[in-house]
């Protein structure tokens, strides 16, 4: 299968790749990194402060009210979980599908997944009224002999997200092992050697190790693949299992998964564009890689758009007045502005990527990826808030407005995300050296680019 362009530009050797990637962490820390970390930690402090005040005072500091029992916290949770979808999708599903272009971005995307899920996990934990007993959600043996309620989708969430996080972490770590060994071998300082030595789990790169490693990686990819699909399906049941019009929708699981991949890829694009620029990785993460991601965005974006349309059709077709009201109200009611932001960002913006010129324009894709994530946040806002604010009995309808603490908690969660991310790119190989090397022509014993290919 000939490729249009080489996956890695500039014909680097294995050594070049090792030097380039390892060099990022071995060079003197650039001042801009300190600046960025300073900003990120400041934001993280905003999160710590906001959560601290929340624990002290209660969830009343947020804008929640009686009909609208869930607000920004749940929106942020779903949004961050959604973003956390790209990593494992790229690593696991594209791995199984033998999409070799994934190698340049998978490490990066997987790390993003872990950090996004870390951010996501904060929200369901802190949004409960009595944070100090949140562990009751887990099936912890206790003197009352109480199990959690296995019928509750929130409990399913606990299992789905924690399983996903664990699997993603293992997958990411397994992928890191050969690279960690490279770092160990290149380390000059003893302490660094010691740490990476421990983390590398005695990797020597022997044949048996590679055989076991590749099999383990394949198995983990197999385990992770259904999780990619299940986690957001389960998150969607938080809504779909309820009886609330606008939530009680059978289309939610596939629609949520498509939306999650959509926003996850958009986030990968945003971060990749910045990182490849700063660390001059244009040869490894080429425009070709980015273009492939925009194609995924176009596909999933169109699926999301289809789902929006289908929801309206079903609302009409159901003949249920409550259902019909909710959808008409979304488009024309008190939160219509949010709805049209969502439609603009999620349905119209990805359509730009039908054009190759726009698909390959870094500026366009950068802006579009940011807009898409704004749109996806608003999608969750529209789902969570509009359905709750105006449900069955008009007497209980109300309007939901966030407070400064809703905003600061959300903004602060970026602090956590970027702090983790900056630490990651400073101390760990942000691109999988092993896997990139595997797609270099040197790695191909058949040398297809220069000679015959044996199938």
């Amino acid at each position: 299968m000939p490729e249009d362009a080489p996956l890695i530009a500039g014909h680097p050797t294995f050594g070049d790749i090792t030097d380039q990637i390892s060099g990022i962490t071995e060079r003197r820390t650039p001042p801009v990194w300190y600046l960025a970390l300073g900003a990120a930690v400041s934001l993280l402090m905003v999160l710590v402060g906001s959560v601290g005040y929340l624990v002290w005072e209660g969830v009343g500091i947020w804008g929640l009210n009686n009909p609208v029992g869930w607000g920004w916290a749940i929106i942020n949770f779903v949004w961050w979980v959604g973003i956390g979808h790209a990593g494992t999708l790229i690593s696991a599903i594209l791995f199984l599908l033998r999409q070799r272009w994934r190698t340049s971005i998978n490490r990066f995307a997987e790390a993003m997944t872990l950090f996004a899920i870390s951010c996501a996990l904060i929200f369901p934990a802190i949004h409960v009224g009595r944070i100090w007993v949140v562990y009751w959600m887990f099936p912890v043996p206790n003197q009352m002999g109480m199990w959690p309620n296995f019928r509750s989708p929130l409990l399913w969430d606990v299992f789905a997200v924690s399983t996903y996080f664990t699997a993603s972490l293992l997958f990411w770590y397994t992928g890191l092992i050969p690279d960690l060994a490279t770092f160990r071998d290149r380390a000059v300082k003893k302490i660094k050697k010691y740490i990476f030595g421990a983390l590398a789990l005695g990797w020597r790169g022997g044949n048996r190790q590679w055989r076991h490693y590749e099999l383990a990686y394949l198995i983990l990819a197999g385990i992770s693949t259904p999780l990619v699909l299940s986690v957001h399906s389960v998150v969607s049941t938080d809504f779909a299992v309820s009886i609330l019009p606008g939530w009680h929708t059978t289309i939610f699981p596939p629609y949520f998964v498509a939306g999650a991949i959509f926003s996850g890829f958009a986030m990968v694009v945003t971060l990749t564009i910045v990182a490849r620029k700063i660390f001059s990785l244009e040869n490894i993460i080429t425009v070709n890689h980015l273009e492939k991601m925009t194609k995924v965005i176009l596909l999933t974006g169109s699926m999301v758009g289809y789902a929006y349309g289908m929801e309206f059709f079903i609302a009409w077709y159901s003949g249920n007045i409550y259902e019909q009201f909710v959808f008409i109200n979304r488009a024309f009611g008190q939160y219509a502005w949010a709805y049209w932001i969502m439609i603009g960002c999620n349905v119209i913006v990805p359509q730009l990527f039908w054009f190759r010129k726009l698909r390959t324009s870094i500026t366009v894709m950068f802006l579009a990826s940011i807009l898409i994530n704004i749109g996806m946040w608003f999608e969750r806002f529209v789902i969570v808030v509009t359905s709750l604010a105006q449900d069955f009995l008009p007497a209980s309808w109300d309007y939901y407005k966030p407070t400064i603490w809703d905003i600061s908690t959300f903004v602060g969660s970026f602090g956590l995300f970027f702090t983790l991310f900056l630490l990651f790119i400073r101390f760990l190989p942000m691109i999988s050296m092993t896997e990139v090397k595997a797609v270099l022509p040197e790695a191909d014993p058949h040398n297809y680019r220069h000679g015959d290919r044996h199938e």
Partner: protein
Amino acid sequence: MSDKVKNEYKKYWRSIEQLADNPEYRQKLLSPYHANQEEQDSGLSRRNFLTLMSASFALASLAGCRRPVEKIIPYVAQPEEITPGLGQYYATTMPFGTSAIGILVHTREGRPIKIEGNPDHPSSQGATDFITQASLLNLYDPDRSKKVRHRGTEDSFDNFISFWREQMTLFAADKGRGLAVLSETFSSPTLNRYRNEFIRTFPQAKWVCWEPFSDENIFRAVDRIAGQGLRPLYHFDRAEVILALDSDFLLYESDAVSAARGFAKGRRVLTTDDRMNRLYVVESNFTVTGAMADHRLRLKSRRVGNLVMALGTELKKLGLNIDGIPETSSTVCGEKWLSALAHDLVSNRGKSLIVAGHRQPPPVHEMVIKLNEALGNIGATLTFRKRHETAVPNSEALNHLATAMNDGDIETLIILGGNPVYNTPANLKFNEALTGIKNSVHLSSHVDETSQLSAWHIPRAHYLESWGDAVSSEGTYSVIQPMIEPLFGGYSDVEIFAFLATGLDKPGYDIVRDTWKNLLPDGDFEKKWRQVLHDGLYKSTPLSDEKVSIKNTAISPDDIANTDNEMEINFYLSSLYDGRFANNGWLQELPEAITRLTWDNAALISPATAKRLRLKNQEMVKIEYKEHTLEIPVWICPGNADNTIALPLGYGRTGSGRIGNGAGFNTYLLRTGDCHYFGSGAKISKTNKIYELANTQDHNRMEGRPIIREATLEEYRRSPNFAKEMVEHPPLKSLYPDHDYSKGYQWGMVIDLNTCMGCNACTLACQSENNIQIVGKEQVQKGRELHWLRNDRYFIGDIDAPKIVYQPVPCQQCENAPCEQVCPVAATVHDSEGLNNMTYNRCIGTRYCSNNCPYKVRRFNFFNYINKLTEIEKMAQNPDVSMRSRGVMEKCTFCIQRIKTVKTRARLENRAVTDGEIKTACQQVCPTQAIQFGNINDPASRVARLKKTDRNYELLAEYNVRPRNSYLAKLRNPNPRLKDYKDETG
């Protein structure tokens, strides 16, 4: 309190004091060496924990036990014995203006915690209004005055005693010239006795009775036309056709509870054969009575007189013999409307009733009595009773008093209750007049606006702390007995009245007993007295209607006719009544029946007037009336008369306490003597400022949803199952196996929307029973009020002639509850009796249950609202109901504590719970008995029988939630002559 009583108090509790103060005991407690070494080592051992606990119990009960010393008799069996953990009910009476309401007070370990109506008392018949419910909280108001004050500093009652004895000798010479008393109105044998004695001692002194809102106009009219000293008694239960003229007889007129009970009797429909009364209402601002109306005409209050004249003319045309009603050709409403009304009245002679509200001037009342006479209603639906032991309000006397005060004719003024500085007509400038008085005394529960300007302030005891007596409107002699020693050492009305009249400081108990010695028939006083205390009333009070002959008094049309087009202002009573309940958080947070506003009042205007003046909701306006001005936000209220500003009284207090101060706007500033209830010529101007009000219901339309199902009586007779037929749905199947509900008690509720009048009594009773906290204005604005039982109010129909429907929404106790399924920690679960229970201790507060509740009846503690309770307010909480802390969801439980109490009692007596034995708080308080609760598994129970009736429907049943609460669809009974006629505006 007299010294004698104080000593007795000490003696009574001596044993416990000894226990607490016993030096040995204390030593033992405090000594670090009293326990053995092993216990010392383990820190707090079981034994020393118990020791400490028992000591703190003893100390706590010493502080907490404030049972009165005199013997009162519990209402239920087991007298003179208190079992900790079991409540006791005592009968007493809440005096209110010239009437009174008989109540039972639920006390726990000596603390009154809930007020119920006294079923044996004709004034309440077991129900109460929301104000009576809320009066409990006044008892525990931490802002109540605690000390006698003299010229701004604390003083002692002994000094006041010597002051008054000095004054008595001083005034004795001149027979009381220069002495004046301004009191509230009352109907009380004891108070009346001492008032008369006071007047005998000081014949030259003035005694003025006054209230900002009273039945003075009615009394004046009755005195003139039917004879002195009478009051009308309306028998709504006997009336087939009722015309209410500017009269909110279901909520704010005197004796609204018994009126509502009577009205509901004629309104209740169970089968298509039942009769139903018809209500016409003419009013300027929407009231709950107007919401109940079959035909409602919105008309300026000032034009009601015109309408009565027009109606008189119309009735004469139909051959009725009416004298003394001026003829008029002016029509204030559509001729068709008036003629249909007149025909209806005439064809129901002797079974109709016309009532006019207390705001209307005496000539209107005279005409109304004449019309009732011509319709043959007197003796049937309208009778007259003696005003027993009543101090009648007198505005003229108040004016004279103010003049005398300004002229320097008054040297000493004693103000018994009331708050004249705050609520007397603005033109009297009572504050200035009061400052000029040499000696002024104010008896008041708070150091309020008047007390701050008076020389002496005497703390007034709450009625639940006082001995006293009262006569309710229909003439029942009732006793007021204390449930608790005065918490802040206040003085009761009878003690102060007696002291003022005699100079002797006697205990209230002796005073009241002395009065009743003359009241009760001869022979075995002790036995009869005990019976009265037990019952709360003298059951054999002779009640008889007075025979009256209606005089043909002359009425000049100039007194009543009114056709100018000036802007009208009118004043009406708010949730805080006239302002005396301003410091009551329950009432401040109670959504007003029509506007659903809390914590503030606003100037109400109709949508058409708002459009004309280009005013928006919550916009501040400047209202000018004569030389008085007021800035207040406007609230647009559909159904109010055009060109009218309705102003609720009672807000904008400055001397009420931490709750009431600063809440709302003082509309008394616009209220002058000639515009006591309404007046014309007000000017309104924009200020371009916005003032945010706290409203509990944002959306006022039903959006065409089958929520409150309504039909006319005729439609109902044609299709009796109309309510059920309004919703079609596929067969309902659940994914999960059903619970077994076929055995044991299965609790259910039915709410009759046809008799529910939206008075809010249920909301408040629930709040009192279930320790529901207030959250404050800011939290209400955010939509976080905690009322378990909310009363949904929808406007229906045309914006210019809207109707209102009400629907109380408690937890519907779904059999297939959506909330239970989604709770991750199983904090809300079903029990075998079909109740959807909430385990507060298990709740972690995900709020998913609330999101998934289609009725949105779950309430969340966003903050730790119970933290704000002061120690004294904690005493008002029901010990049977858990307090909910921050982060916990709460909701209606069908008063599970009451269910459990009765079930336990029945089990101990080895019998089944009988129908009606368990009453939920909302059911018990309901004046119209619209709420019924019981075992639906028992086909003979009232609730099971109601659920079988044709109008029964379950809200949102199409969602297969299977609610245990159901509703009986609302009916209206419009006049067939006015079919397809849109009720006009005046």
